[in-house]
């Protein structure tokens, strides 16, 4: 498709925004032969999945104008000569780096559609629980991956080891039943389940199980059913592509690179036109016209929607797709729902390679690691974190920062407390306790070089205020540590409405 102007054709779909779902949809539709106009109002790709250099990130913090991202802070820290920040473009920092379980639907979709070849996947090696309660022991406790790990764990006595294995079996369900534990009611939390009389597991083990869920909730607020599903997913993924790891990240900020790969896949078909710094300002649905008008126009416009763009173009399309922030909404601009879940998100650049946490039993070394910091472990001014904190660490092998540095993506539910202060304290204590241990005289403990901290609000389901069924509203982006398979499901739902079937979703056109 070679066109001179955007209004020269009737598009099958106009997609506003280049987040993960939008880009996946664009690639799938373009491969299915649909004519797609894909817009992003920013001068870069990815939206919430963007990967930015330091300069771009700084500009983002100043310009981010979104109803669900608030309180953005960009801070740099003094550093000793020679160990500071490098050239702006030596960094590729992801707003939603997102790991993928090796057993995830997304990963098998990427392999099936051959898109994995454009990505380079690296291991997420260690899963740790931070516990500094005993100053004599290592504050990072590796979460056991196997029965062997559990039996080699010196902090557990033999009885505890047996119980942990039993609890693990009951959750992962190798026998297909709950090992006679009995039906678990929906109201039971993960913590209640693990502390029930049959198990009576200590807090350290509860934390280890909780860390595998990648959920920001407290273990006593995490419904057991959900937690069970998450933990199963972890163990189901373990060993699929090599021993000892269950998740991968894509090089160059993972989810951010994935979004780019999807857009490129769409563009390469020739069916998708990409326009940056443009967006939808108005949507005129056919159905909103009076029946007589519609009858008049039917002959020439079929079921077309007219869409006005920021550039001034008025174009015709059969479908429109986007999140509320990218589509003109009839209700007052998407407001933060009073019950909306808030998260503190952040990106830290530190001057330490944190080598120890990327060590793995088998080569190649990992490039990603997860550190779970339980509630109450970080204290600032006699107040501590009331919710757990997740720290996702990326090494410089990801291409996101120069050698000798690493990136920490730190996040926490709840926006009432001061996230920036808590995160600074969490990162500093990690650096002190982890980096200093590996530090020698010539490699001192690292320090924070840069942080970007912001609040984001998870979206509730959008109310569909468009009548015709051809404007498809996506929910706001929800911050998660993994890129969840539910996003593929949401995308496929819309794909099905446009194409009529889910068959061969994202598979290469065989023309």
């Amino acid at each position, binding site marked *: 498709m070679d066109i001179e*102007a955007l209004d020269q054709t009737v598009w099958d779909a106009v997609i506003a925004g280049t987040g993960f779902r939008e880009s996946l949809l664009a690639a799938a539709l373009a491969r299915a032969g649909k004519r797609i106009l894909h817009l992003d109002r920013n001068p870069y790709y990815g939206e919430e999945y963007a990967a930015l250099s330091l300069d771009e990130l700084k500009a983002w913090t100043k310009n981010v104008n979104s109803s669900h991202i608030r309180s953005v802070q960009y801070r740099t820290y003094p550093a000793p000569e020679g160990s500071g920040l490098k050239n702006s473009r*030596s960094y590729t920092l992801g707003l939603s780096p997102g790991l993928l379980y090796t057993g995830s639907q997304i990963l098998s979709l990427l*392999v099936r559609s051959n898109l*994995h070849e454009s990505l380079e996947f690296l291991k997420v090696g260690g899963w740790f629980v931070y516990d500094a309660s005993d100053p004599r022991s290592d504050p990072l406790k590796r979460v056991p991956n196997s*029965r062997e790990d559990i039996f080699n764990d010196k902090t557990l006595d033999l009885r505890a080891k047996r119980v942990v294995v039993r609890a693990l079996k009951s959750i992962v369900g190798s026998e297909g039943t709950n090992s006679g534990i009995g039906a678990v009611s929906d109201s039971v939390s993960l913590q209640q389940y693990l502390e029930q009389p049959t198990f009576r597991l200590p807090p350290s083990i509860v934390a280890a199980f909780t860390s595998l869920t990648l959920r920001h909730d407290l273990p006593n607020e995490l419904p057991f059913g959900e937690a069970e599903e998450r933990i199963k997913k972890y163990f189901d993924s373990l060993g699929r592509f090599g021993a000892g790891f269950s998740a991968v990240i894509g090089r160059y900020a993972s989810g951010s690179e994935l979004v780019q790969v999807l857009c490129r896949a769409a563009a390469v078909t020739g069916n998708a036109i990409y326009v*940056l710094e443009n967006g939808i300002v108005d949507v005129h649905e056919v159905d909103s016209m009076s029946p007589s008008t519609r009858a008049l126009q039917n002959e020439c416009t079929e079921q077309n929607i007219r869409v006005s763009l920021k550039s001034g173009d008025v174009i015709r399309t059969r479908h429109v797709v986007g999140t509320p922030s990218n589509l003109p909404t009839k209700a007052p601009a998407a407001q933060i729902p009073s019950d909306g879940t808030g998260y503190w998100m952040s990106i830290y650049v530190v001057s330490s390679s944190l080598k120890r946490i990327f060590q793995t039993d088998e080569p*190649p070394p990992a490039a990603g690691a997860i550190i779970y910091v339980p509630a109450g472990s970080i204290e600032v001014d006699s107040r501590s974190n009331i919710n757990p904190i997740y720290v996702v660490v990326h090494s410089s092998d990801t291409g996101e920062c120069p050698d000798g540095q690493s990136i920490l993506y730190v996040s926490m539910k709840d926006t009432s407390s001061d996230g920036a202060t808590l995160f600074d304290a969490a990162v500093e204590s990690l650096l002190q306790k982890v980096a200093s241990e590996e530090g020698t005289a010539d490699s001192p403990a690292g320090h924070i070089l840069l942080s970007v901290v912001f609040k984001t609000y998870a979206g509730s389901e959008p109310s569909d205020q468009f009548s015709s069924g051809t404007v498809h509203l996506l929910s706001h982006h929800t911050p998660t540590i993994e890129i969840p398979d539910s996003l593929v499901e949401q995308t496929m739902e819309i794909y099905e409405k446009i194409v009529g079937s889910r068959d061969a979703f994202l598979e290469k056109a065989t023309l």
Partner: protein
Amino acid sequence: MADGGPKPSSSVKLVLLGEAAVGKSSLVLRFVNDDFQENREPTIGAAFLTQKCNLPSRTIKFEIWDTAGQERFASLAPMYYRNAQSALVVYDLTKASSLAKAKHWVAELQRQASPGIVIALVGNKLDLTNQSTGLEGSMGGLSLSAAAGEGDEEEEEEGDARQITTAEAKSYADEEGLLFFETSAKTGHNVQEVFTAIANAIPESTLKTRGGPGANRTGNSTGGDTFGSGGVNLSAVGETNKDGCAC
């Protein structure tokens, strides 16, 4: 220690940029398939091709993103030069305006692309100039420059459509620190040389995580280390290592 073993292999992402109809796709076609098509259709959107380039010490696998020069909305290129280790900026040496566009791309790459990106400036369609027949003596693109500069002054013969002198483009390339070649995708002249020069100019350090020295290539271990030192090979869906199950 790696005696007899396969050479280390690294992937290098390369993006082609330049005005419409300067011959970007033809250069790639010549490099990848050693073929040429007259009156080729313009590229739409972009194309993706791969081709290996054997160096004495390693194999470079080029992942080539060929962009559409006529792209009207100027939004595709950022998608392609992101994380690219190399760029080939092409102009048509019979069309003065195409060098201006090439300079624009070079400036954009220097501003936006990875700091260590290797950029080659390539003047294509040498077959439409007088040099096209007298190429036997010149080995590389650079050795052409002296002869070309003179040739242009002296003989403005019929059939010489050259509008951009070698000297002009060469001095610009030197100023900006670019590799520089004049090529003919039609005859194949200098095409292989461009890619070899780029492969040689990629710093070792940017190749390391793709299987440089230190890559684990013992060949005995099971599973997914065929990709290189850091990568996880998803193509080998062999579940040989499915020993992680907890129970």
